[in-house]
């Protein structure tokens, strides 16, 4: 079998079970592809020994009823703590940190037989939309249309780049404001953020605890369903994880969406939005209508306030979560001068260890939580968040099954192009995705077309809480209708 790394998870699973290929062969093919792709900056800690050991074990237990991901080689975002393997959240402050424990999500993937190829690049502490804030350097989009190197998006940029370039069969991502869906759209792959509480956050380096969720990034919707089933589930170690049964999401993929109601929110029509994005969106609505769904116009009136609310709540939670990086228990400690006390140690350690964007967000969070501003900023943002969620509750109560929007306001941009822009310009990348985190809903990005330059564009579907199966099925139908099969041509 040639081009093993191009297999999808479902195809590889079937080939493994039939004995057409072994996990060791598949894993070795991925490891070679990874070694040849350093120019993409996707894998930042390679773990070939662990991978081959897991692959051999998977081959030994191979049978018709082997676990769902038996022998499937995956990449793991650096935000996940993996036992004995560097887990730095792409930050200098966690230099040298090797967790003594395994995150719940990766434990579940490994229990289902998955193979870990290594750790994937990302924005530092998942704060960014272009993977340019990483201590490891940029991850690069495998898509290219001219001399420029393009961003794979962020924060899960390494995951997106690795999956799009066929370095692994799938990857884990995390999404606080769009960090799975935006990079998936920028690289022509599929990414789903499940309902808040579906995946345990235990062992995932925390950014904004009320918004963070893990999810899969894969080559198609079926693979997303397979991986998501394995990643979800109740965990007593995360008090916000939902004690609900996890259905077999793959079984939900019938492609039949007759009678479903799809909402088109008018507030997502942005002034100055590229006509290509508008066309992609209306084409997507037509595809769902042709498949038997009813497409209706809806209103989510507080959409405009989602980004400002997010940029209060997320930094506030981050400033609290990142207080733990103090140079005492793990990671980097600054070298001190004679006479320096513990305060100097904290201040120098955090100044050296955190990058610029992380420092900025921690300080914004500190400011909005400080005495005298807590009510004006933080409490007000939490009230606006309640209104944003109420908007969604209302349209779902009116019978809408899923909402169709663009995933991003543009195709991938060049690395470095936003360097001179003010931070708000970068934050606008998440304008279509951030509402979903604030409302705790499941959202999926599906590639449905190319722009005039030949770069992938994605559409987002937003589902009802806990209805990932239904959401994946609608996405599956959209994927079938769109027939997006383009791949980047290899230059790396």
């Amino acid at each position, binding site marked *: 079998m040639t081009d093993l790394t191009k297999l999808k998870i479902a195809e590889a699973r079937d080939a493994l079970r039939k004995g057409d290929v072994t996990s060791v062969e598949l894993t070795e093919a991925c490891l070679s592809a990874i070694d040849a792709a350093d120019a993409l900056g996707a894998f930042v800690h390679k773990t070939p020994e662990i991978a081959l050991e897991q692959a051999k074990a998977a081959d030994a237990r191979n049978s018709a009823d082997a676990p769902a991901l038996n022998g499937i080689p995956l990449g793991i975002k650096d935000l996940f703590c993996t036992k004995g393997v560097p887990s730095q959240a792409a930050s200098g402050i966690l230099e*040298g940190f*090797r*967790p*003594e*424990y395994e995150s719940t999500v990766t434990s579940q993937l490994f229990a289902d037989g998955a193979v870990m190829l290594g750790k994937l690049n990302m924005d530092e502490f998942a704060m960014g939309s272009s993977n340019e804030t990483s201590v490891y350097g940029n991850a690069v989009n495998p898509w290219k249309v001219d001399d420029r190197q393009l961003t794979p998006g962020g924060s899960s940029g390494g995951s997106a780049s690795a999956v799009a370039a066929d370095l692994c069969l799938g990857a884990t991502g995390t999404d606080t404001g769009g960090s799975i869906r935006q990079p998936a759209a920028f690289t022509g792959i599929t990414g789903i953020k499940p309902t*808040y*509480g579906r995946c345990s956050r235990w062992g995932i380096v925390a950014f904004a605890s*009320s918004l963070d969720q893990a999810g899969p990034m894969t080559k198609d919707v079926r693979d997303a369903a397979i991986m998501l089933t394995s990643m979800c589930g109740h965990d*007593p170690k995360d008090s*916000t994880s*939902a*004690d609900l049964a996890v259905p077999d999401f793959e079984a939900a993929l019938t492609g039949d969406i007759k009678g479903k109601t799809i909402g088109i929110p008018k507030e997502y029509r942005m002034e100055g939005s590229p006509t290509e994005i508008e066309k992609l969106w209306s084409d997507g609505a037509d595809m769902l209508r042709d498949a038997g769904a009813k497409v209706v116009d809806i209103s989510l009136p*507080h959409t405009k*306030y989602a*980004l*400002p*609310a997010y*940029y209060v709540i997320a930094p506030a939670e981050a*400033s609290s979560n990142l207080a733990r990086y*103090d140079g*005492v*228990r*793990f*990671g*980097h*400690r600054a070298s001190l001068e004679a006479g*320096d*006390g*513990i*305060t*100097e*140690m904290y*201040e*120098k350690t*955090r*100044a050296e260890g955190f990058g610029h964007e992380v420092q*900025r967000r*921690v*300080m*914004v969070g*500190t*400011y*909005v939580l*400080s005495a005298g501003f807590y009510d004006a*900023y933080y*409490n*007000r943002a*939490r*009230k*606006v*968040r*309640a209104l944003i*969620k109420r908007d969604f509750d209302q349209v779902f109560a009116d019978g809408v099954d899923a909402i169709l929007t663009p995933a991003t306001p543009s195709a991938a941009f060049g690395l470095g192009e936003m360097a001179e822009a*003010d*931070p*708000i310009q970068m934050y606008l990348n998440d304008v279509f995705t951030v509402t979903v985190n*604030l*409302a*705790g809903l499941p959202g999926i990005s599906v590639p449905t077309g190319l722009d005039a330059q030949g770069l992938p564009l994605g559409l987002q579907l937003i589902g009802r*809480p806990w209805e990932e199966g239904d959401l994946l099925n609608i996405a599956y139908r959209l994927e079938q209708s769109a027939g997006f099969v383009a791949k980047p041509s290899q230059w790396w």
Partner: protein
Amino acid sequence: MSIDTETARRVAKLARIKVEEDALPALASEFSAILGFIEQLNEVDVEGVEPMTSVTPQRLKRREDVVTDGSQQAAVLKNAPDAREGFFAVPKVVE
């Protein structure tokens, strides 16, 4: 709202991040831009709205108040930049 250098200095101190004196004006202007963006929230009528505490309407689980973990001193100290005799070591705190 415009953030002055003094406020930027105070926030950096509260956040325990050392910011050099000459970097404060640029930081203050970045804060001002971000806070200006956030000010849009003042347009929203939030009268009578409760601040969100949990995005899903679940009640937090409870369990017996018993020890479920522990006796992992070596693992806990393994990643410490400076651990001595079973403790985390830090610069002198008490005179």
